[in-house]
C-alpha cells in the first residue's frame, strides 16, 4: 500500500511546553489509524498539524504540509448553525475549490445518509447528525486522508455506530483515516493500527494485537489494561 500521509520527525513546542517530540509515521490508503493517549498527550496538536491548522516547530507532514490533501474534522463542531446541512456543505465545497460543488454536496449527503435532512438548519439536528455533517464537510473535497479529532465524543452508542459505518465506508473506498480518541476500545474495534502518544512522544506504533502482546496481555484480554501498562512502562525521550 502506498503512503497517503507521511509524518516525519514532527515536533511542536509552545514556549517551554514540548507538545510533540519528533513524531514519525505513515498512513496508507484505506488504512484506519487511531491515535490514543491520556489528556495532554499531544493528540489534538498532532491532528491539527496534519490538517495544516498549525505549523510544526520542526519536521514535516505529507508533501510540504499540503492541507488540501487532508480532510479535517476538528474536535468541536465547526459548522454554521444558521445554515442548512446542504448550505454548509456547499460553502465548504466552494471554499475547497471543488470543481463541481453541487455534485459533491449531493454525493456527500447520500454517503452520510443526510439527504432527507439536507434543508434542515444545523441547529435543529441531533448531536449525531451534526457530527456526520461535520465529517461530511471534512470529506467534501474527496481528500486522500481524513483526520478526525475525537469524532465520537458526546455521541450515544447508536449515533456512534452510524458515524463509524460512514467513516468505515470511506476507508473501504481508499481514504486513509487517522483519528484520535480517549476510548481505547473504540481504537481496537475500528483501527487497523494504533499510535500511542504520551507527553508528546510516540510510545507505540502497531496493530491492536501487537499492543496486547507488547503489554503481555492474552489475545482476548483487557485492551485498556494493556494500554495502561504500555503508558507505565513505555520509553520516553
Amino acid at each position, binding site marked *: 500500500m502506498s503512503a497517503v500521509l507521511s509524518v516525519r520527525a514532527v515536533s511542536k513546542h509552545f514556549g517551554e511546553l514540548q507538545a510533540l517530540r519528533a513524531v514519525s509515521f505513515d498512513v496508507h490508503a484505506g488504512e484506519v489509524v487511531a491515535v490514543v493517549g491520556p489528556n495532554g498527550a499531544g493528540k489534538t496538536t498532532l491532528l491539527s498539524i496534519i490538517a*495544516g*491548522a498549525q505549523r510544526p516547530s520542526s519536521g514535516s507532514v505529507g508533501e510540504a504540509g499540503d492541507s488540501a490533501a487532508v480532510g479535517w474534522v476538528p474536535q468541536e463542531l465547526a459548522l454554521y448553525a444558521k445554515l442548512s446541512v446542504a448550505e454548509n456543505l456547499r460553502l465548504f465545497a466552494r471554499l475547497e475549490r471543488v470543481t463541481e460543488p453541487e455534485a459533491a454536496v449531493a454525493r456527500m449527503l447520500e454517503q452520510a445518509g443526510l439527504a432527507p435532512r439536507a434543508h434542515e438548519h444545523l441547529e435543529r439536528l441531533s448531536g449525531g447528525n451534526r457530527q456526520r455533517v461535520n465529517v461530511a464537510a471534512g470529506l467534501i473535497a474527496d481528500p486522500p486522508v481524513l483526520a478526525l479529532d475525537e469524532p465520537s465524543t458526546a455521541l450515544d452508542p447508536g449515533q456512534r455506530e452510524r458515524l463509524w459505518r460512514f467513516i468505515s465506508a470511506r476507508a473501504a473506498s481508499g481514504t486513509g483515516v487517522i483519528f484520535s480518541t480517549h476510548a481505547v476500545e473504540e481504537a481496537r474495534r475500528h483501527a487497523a493500527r494504533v499510535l500511542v502518544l504520551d507527553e508528546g512522544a510516540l510510545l507505540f506504533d502497531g496493530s491492536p494485537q501487537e499492543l496486547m502482546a507488547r503489554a503481555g496481555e492474552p489475545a482476548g484480554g483487557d485492551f485498556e489494561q494493556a494500554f495502561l501498562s504500555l503508558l507505565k512502562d513505555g520509553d520516553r525521550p
Partner: protein
Amino acid sequence: MRWLLGKDLLILGRSRLLVALLVAYPVVIALLMGFAISRGPSRPRVAIADQTPPGQVVEVGSRRVDVHAYVRRLFSQVKAINVATRKQAVAKVKSAEALAAVIVPPDIATRVASGINQGQLELIYNGDALQQSLVQSQLRSALAQANLGFSEQIQQAAAQALDALLRGGSLGVAGAPRLIGLRQVPPLLRRILAREPPGTDRQALEQVERFAAFAAQNLDLSKKVLASVGQPIRIKSVLLHGRRTPLDTFAVVAAVSLSLLLVCVLLGAGGVALEREEHVLARLLRGLVSREALLAQKSLLAAACGLVVAFALLAFVSIFVALDWSRAGLWLAALGLGSVAFGALGVAIGALARDVRAASLLAFLLSLPLAFLALVPSGAVARGVYDTMAVISFVFPFKACLQALDAAVNGASPAIAGSLAHLAVLALAFGGLARLGLQRSD
C-alpha cells in the same frame, strides 16, 4: 471571499431580530444623543408664590413697571407652578412636584422703588446636587435677564428725562412744570448779553452762558454713558477659521457618526467572533481563506452595512433639518472612510475576543466612552484631562469621522482631506491589530 460574504449575508438575513436590534439600537441612541445636543436643558418646575398686592407697580421716572408682569418675565425660563402662599410652595417642593420654590415678598416693589434697597426673592429647593445646580443656574440666569430688562427701563426713563432737560418739555411726572431746554439757554443768554452794558453783571451772565453751552454738550453724551452702564459688556462673536456650524446640524453629524460607529463596530466584532465561536475559524484558516482576506471581508461587510444605515439616517434627518444635498459626494466620502475605519476597529475587537458576547460587550464598552470623549469641548475640563482625552480621541476613529462628516455636511473646519487621511491611517492600524489578534485561530 465572496462565498464567505454570501454566507454572512445569508446568516444576517436569517437573524432578523439581531439585524433589527443592530440597526434600531444605534439609530435610537444616535437620535437621542442628537436631540440632547440640539436642545437645551428642559425647564425645571418651580413653585412661585407671588405675595405682592394685585396691581402693584414700581415707578421709575415717568415709567410704571407692573410687578406681576415683572415676576412673569423673571420666571419665563422655568415651568412655573403658581401658588398663593409660602406654605403651599414649600409643600410643592417637599412632594417633589416642584424642584424649587420662589417667594416674591409683598414689599418688593417698595424696596425697589426706594432706590436705596435691593429687592429680595427667597429660593427654597430640594433634590440632589445636580438638580440644585440646575435650579440655581436657571434662576440666576433668569434673574440676570430680568434685571437687565429692568435696568433698560430705568435707562430709558433716565434718557427721557435727559432729553427733556436738553430740548425742553415735560418730565412726564404729574404736576412737574414744563422746562426750557438746556440747549436753548446759551442763545437766550447771548441775546440778553447783547443788550447788557459791560460790568460785573455782564461778566456773570457770560460765565452762565459758557456753563450752559458746556452742560448741553456733555449732557448729550450722558445717554451713551447710560447705555454702557446698563449693559457694560456685549458679546461680539468672531470665528477664527471655518464656517460656523449650527447646533442642530452638528447634532445630526454627531448622531450619524455615533450610529455609524455602533453598526460597524458591533457587526465587525460580531462577524469575526462568530467564526471563532462556531469553531470554524481554524477550519477556514488552514488554507481555505487567508487571514487578511477574512478580515477584509468582515470589515468591508460591516462598513457597507454601516454606510447604508448612516446614509439612510442622514437622508431621513434631512427631511427635518436643512442639509445641502449638493455636498452628498463629500458625505459619502466621509461616511465611506469612517465606516471602513470603524469596521477595522470592529474586526480588531472581534479578533481579540473569544466569543460574540465578549466581543459585543467590548465593542459597547469602547464605543460609547469614545463618542463621549470626542464630544467634550475644550475648556470644559482641565487642560491635562482634555489633552489626555484628545490623545485617546486621536488614536480611535470617532473624532476623525465626526470632523470629516462635519466638514462634509457643514463645511466646518478642519478641512475634510486631513480627516479622511487620518481615518485611512487608523483603518490600516486597526487592520494590523486585527491581523495580530487573529494569529491565534482556535
